């Protein structure tokens, strides 16, 4: 793993995506994407539906194989050594992968076996996502928001250094959104946890992100710090719309 210095700050790459390409039969997918996420960054991945956000996230966790290109997490190639690459990473991609017949605690215990994690950590993550009172309830009886909280608990379980969250605010109530937002900021500040977060709600991402990446039609349109993105635009939403409209205009031409 290479460590770079930029402006006196240590830049330790956590995620390195190089010329990633993944096309589906319908022509959709990711055409060319290169992205480096450094330690402590909170990267908001923005893009319209079908732009390739989830495909990218699936490829990061090895769920889908790239047509070409490489993806490395903490310097470990996902294609070559998935066990090592995912050791220090947590994921919430699309709907939370939860076994409905199992309780919240059983779901976490099943996942804990991969990391040598004890019951105290399970209790802690249940407490973090405020599901402790419901830990013995079957997951299929949970509301959408509770399932989302359990999905976040599963991602946090191993206390990973890198978290990939695909639309983490889905289904959460206002209090839940604020709570998860504060949790992301706390993990970043206290532990230097790195985040790649996708979402459609630009104002929400603006509150937590240090960087933004805009993806459109399978290409990375822009990757900048939040300050850089807001330099000529009043909000992240305006920045995003300006980029997408410009890209759609150039496609029409």
């Amino acid at each position, binding site marked *: 793993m290479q460590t770079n210095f930029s402006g006196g700050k240590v830049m330790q790459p956590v995620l390195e995506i190089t010329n990633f390409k993944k096309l589906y039969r319908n022509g959709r997918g990711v055409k060319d994407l290169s992205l480096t996420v450094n330690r402590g960054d909170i990267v908001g991945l923005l893009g319209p539906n079908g732009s390739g956000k989830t495909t990218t996230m*699936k490829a990061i*966790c*090895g*769920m*889908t*194989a790239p047509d070409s290109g490489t993806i490395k997490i903490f310097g470990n190639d996902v294609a070559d050594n*998935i*066990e*090592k*690459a*995912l*050791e220090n*990473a947590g*994921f919430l*991609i*699309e*709907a939370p*992968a*939860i*076994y*409905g*017949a*199992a309780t919240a605690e*059983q*779901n976490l215990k*099943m*996942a804990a*076996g*991969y*990391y*040598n994690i004890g019951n105290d950590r399970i209790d802690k993550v249940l407490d973090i996502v405020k599901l402790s009172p419901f830990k013995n309830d079957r997951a299929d009886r949970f509301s959408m928001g509770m399932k989302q909280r359990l999905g976040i608990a*599963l991602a946090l379980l191993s206390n990973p250094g890198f978290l990939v969250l695909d639309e983490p605010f889905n289904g959460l109530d206002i209090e839940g959104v604020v709570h998860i937002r504060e949790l992301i900021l706390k993990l970043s500040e206290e532990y230097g946890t790195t985040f790649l977060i996708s979402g459609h709600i630009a104002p929400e991402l603006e509150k937590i992100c240090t960087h933004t990446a805009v993806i459109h039609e399978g290409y990375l349109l822009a990757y900048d710090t939040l300050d850089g993105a807001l330099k000529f635009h009043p909000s992240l939403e305006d920045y995003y719309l300006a980029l997408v409209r410009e890209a759609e205009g150039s496609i029409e031409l």
Partner: protein
Amino acid sequence: MRKFFACLRCETKKLSLRKKYTVFSIIMAAICVLGTLLSTLLSKVTVSAQLKFTINMPMTILPMMTQFVIPLIAIMAACDLFASEYHNQTIKAQLMRPVSRFKIYLAKVIAVFLICAAIMLITFAAAAVCSLFSGTAENVPYSLGAYLLDLIPVFILILLAAALNQITKGPTSAMFLCIVVYILAKAIGVFVPVMDGLLFTSYMQWHRLWLGTAVHIKELSSKTLLLLGYGVTLFSAGYWLFLSREY
């Protein structure tokens, strides 16, 4: 190996959470008890000594187990761990963990085998206890050997069901395809005798080759190699399809 066992524990836990497998075990044990009660009752009402009913319950119930019940359970469990998980996307819970696809596939196959073996052994235990009351307890060690040997072709059937699950789109179609292929293989064995010896479904009562009166080494080795060939081919095909699947 720790990650493989974590995966295996996870898969067996998922199957154990489904009540239908417990229900199957209870039904099979109940059939053993009812069969013994019926045979005892019949032997008491029969006057003639020649018509005395003494049932060796473990061996009486074994053909039903290996031909129908266990194949059905193997197919159901394989569909629960593969097609159902693809359908409701819970397969992602494993794929997002630091464990290789090979370990996931192997753990799923072995978990299905373990549930089949557990139901086989529970049925055997119930039948063995019943045989103590029907006076056929001396056959219990032989029966145990037969039950254990018959688990070998069950494993091959599980590999077939796992491979078929990779080419279907949902749990219903996977279940249907597995059952149709199993019935078709059985039917071919019956109606095309020349094919009978080549199909692994003809060896579901594997113990007959090993525990018969005369053991032919040449036949045993050729049929063992045949099953091994099926096992290697089906595992490789299933794993390759699992590996190349998009989630």
